[in-house]
């Protein structure tokens, strides 16, 4: 039956995460952004909430409660706190979920427990490539067999970028084309021929994002995720990113709304001006609409659908809506929207990232 109310359990999770975002993430977000440094203690406490662990298989110590809808709810709240820190908190999923979804039992046994320990363990997924028209479905990074015999090693060449590269990570999952097929491989960070250099980006500056170069990186066949399905991975990435984007947009909307109710000009609160009030109304409508699209895509994933269509529609809508909300927030703040003492300019920089990221978070 059509319904849009989170279950009681979901409502509880949302409440917990929102409080975490408000009390733990928000107070440090600006400082982290300026310092280009993640708050290790916040990540540790986030790990204790078990947000990612809860979605991993019970067999390896996870909660076994995988739900893309719940994942979307969590992602929105975290990103409402701060996008960079949200992506960091969720980064273990980048390493764990592809293995849970596409990996063999051996691969799961080898890798999943690492994300389920006492310590926060980040994952890394390398999808985006540093070129015009970067295409997740057809990586320009190439994988070829080292030999002609069955089961021979793979050799990978290419370049990736926007790869979350947090301290303490051990592996990275890299996609590459073998002929017309997109493959995924689990590589140790220490693999010979693999170099990672941190890049600086316009937004999410607290999050270390790496440029990867792969020069004849040799991996055994066992590093390949045999059941890898790039459409499914991208759809899950788009839903997660869309949910994050809704969080960013909501944060921008709220800060603009509150400021507009405070700030006076020409003798009234600026929120009492139709030009401002209607802009806020449009933001609110578009944000709610984008959230529903995101939920629908997530729900379809939970039904076992590929959901690439719905996920794509959702992220396309969200990237527009979030940018408009952030840009609108800057306008509402006027001069104050342009300075780094206030949040709108950060929302604007972060919101634009939504248009260039791909699979930087997963549900």
């Amino acid at each position, binding site marked *: 039956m059509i*319904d849009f109310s989170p279950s009681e359990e979901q409502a509880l999770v949302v409440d917990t995460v929102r409080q975490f975002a408000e009390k733990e993430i928000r107070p440090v977000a600006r400082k982290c952004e300026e310092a280009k440094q993640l708050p290790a203690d916040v990540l540790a406490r986030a790990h204790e909430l078990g947000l990612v662990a809860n979605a991993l298989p019970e067999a390896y110590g996870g909660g076994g409660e995988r739900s893309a809808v719940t994942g979307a709810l969590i992602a929105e709240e975290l990103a409402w706190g701060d996008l960079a820190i949200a992506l960091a908190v969720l980064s273990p999923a980048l390493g764990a979920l592809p293995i849970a979804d596409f990996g063999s039992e051996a691969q799961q046994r080898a890798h999943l427990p690492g994300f389920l320990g006492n310590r926060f363990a980040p994952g890394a997924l390398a999808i985006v490539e540093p070129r015009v028209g970067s295409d997740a479905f*057809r990586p320009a990074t190439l994988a070829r067999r080292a030999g002609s015999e069955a089961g021979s090693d793979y050799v990978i060449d290419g370049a990736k970028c926007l790869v979350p590269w947090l301290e303490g990570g051990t592996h990275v999952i890299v996609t590459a084309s073998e002929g017309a097929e997109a493959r995924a491989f689990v590589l140790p960070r220490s693999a010979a021929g693999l170099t990672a250099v941190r890049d600086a980006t316009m937004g999410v500056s607290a999050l270390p994002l790496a440029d990867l170069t792969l020069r004849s990186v040799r991996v055994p066949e066992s590093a390949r995720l045999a059941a890898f399905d790039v459409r499914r991975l991208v759809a899950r990435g788009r839903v997660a990113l869309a949910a994050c984007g809704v969080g960013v947009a909501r944060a921008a909307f709220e800060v603009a709304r509150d400021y507009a109710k405070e700030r006076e000009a020409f003798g009234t609160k600026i929120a009492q001006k139709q030009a401002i009030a209607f802009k806020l109304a449009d933001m609110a409508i578009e944000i709610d609409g984008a959230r529903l*699209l995101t939920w629908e895509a997530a729900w*379809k994933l939970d039904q076992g659908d590929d959901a690439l269509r719905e996920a794509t*529609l959702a992220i396309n809508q969200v990237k527009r809506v979030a940018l408009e909300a952030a840009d609108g927030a800057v306008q509402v703040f006027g001069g104050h929207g342009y300075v780094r003492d206030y949040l709108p300019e950060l929302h604007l920089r972060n919101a634009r990232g939504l248009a260039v990221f791909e699979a930087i978070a997963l549900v």
Partner: protein
Amino acid sequence: MISFAITDRSEKARAHFHRMAAEHMRPISRKYDDQEHDLPTEWVDWYWRTGRFTQPGGEGPSDGFVQVCMQAEELCWGDAGLYLRTPFAGLGGSAVAAAGTPEQKKKFLAVFSELNAEPAWGAMAITEAGAGSDSAAIQTTATPDGDDYVLNGTKIFCTGGEGAAKSPAGFVVVWATVDKTAGRGGIKAFVVPAGSPGMTLVGLENKLGIRASDTATLRFENCRVPRANLLGSDKIRRDDDKSAGDKGFKGAMATFDASRPIVAAMAVGVGRAALDFVKEELAKSGIAPRYDAPPAELTAMERDLAEMEAELQTARLLTWRAAAMMNRGKPNSLEASMAKAKAGLAVTKITQKAVELLGPLGYSKKLLVEKWMRDAKINDIYEGTQQINQLIVARRILDYSSAMLR
């Protein structure tokens, strides 16, 4: 629980109304766009004698108000003008259902579920030449006189007004003020039965679209209705009176709240008609939106189609959300206005884009796309314009009274 699963029963209902739309509305769509003020007898007679008694089938729970929205969407996918010309109780009926006594309901609404020879319509008459979006500025007066009220004034833009004023069992719910000094509190709703002396059908509008629908101007000259035809209490609630008021103006507003998701769903239906058709036509030329296209190869038309899909689905989901809240008995005034505002704007743009995508074919009357563009635009205007809905949303999100944000 968050779910996008349509119940089996509602799926069957959707299919049922889709067939009805495809079989009984689409074939005469163009005819009654061209023949603007003619009664679409094929549809009206069939619906009255047969259509309204057909059963969709299906068992188990339905999606409730969401299913009602689906029905409106399907029938307006068929033809929004014909839908509005369907012999049913309409907004006038909603007002009676919301604010009427059991006697009033029985008296005015029973006809719509009984087997009768002659079709009937209900309508609501609010707008006046000097009171468009500003309903509180109503000038039509209702003066108590003995056991009656005497109505005087002129109403415009009364959807379904011809049918309601002329069909044997029809009625018009007329908003009038019993006390101009009382502002909103003086505004009451009266059921005026068809054929009441003093009620005159002055004329019908020539419109951009939804031409099969009768948009009437009704004049009331010393038009008498029994006091029993007043909906709700006859107490006047002053604007400065903080006590619990009656259902006069507020009751009417409640009617709007309940109707807005349906009106939004109607909009979605028109938008879908255009989008479905354009996608089919473009697919014949090998143009279909890809969701995994290389960014540099995505065509402008593909992106347009994907945007139209996203916008339409956004409007539909906002609509369903407002309806689902009614299922849960939650107040949904904010969400209903959001849905109405988004749906009106989205389908205006979708249908305008559809004409462009089909180029010369889209602009020709040989196809229905140009008609859907004309039909769609009404959704930005009636039952609260785009701007009025933005205003309502703005007040809610800012927690402002109407005095604080005008």
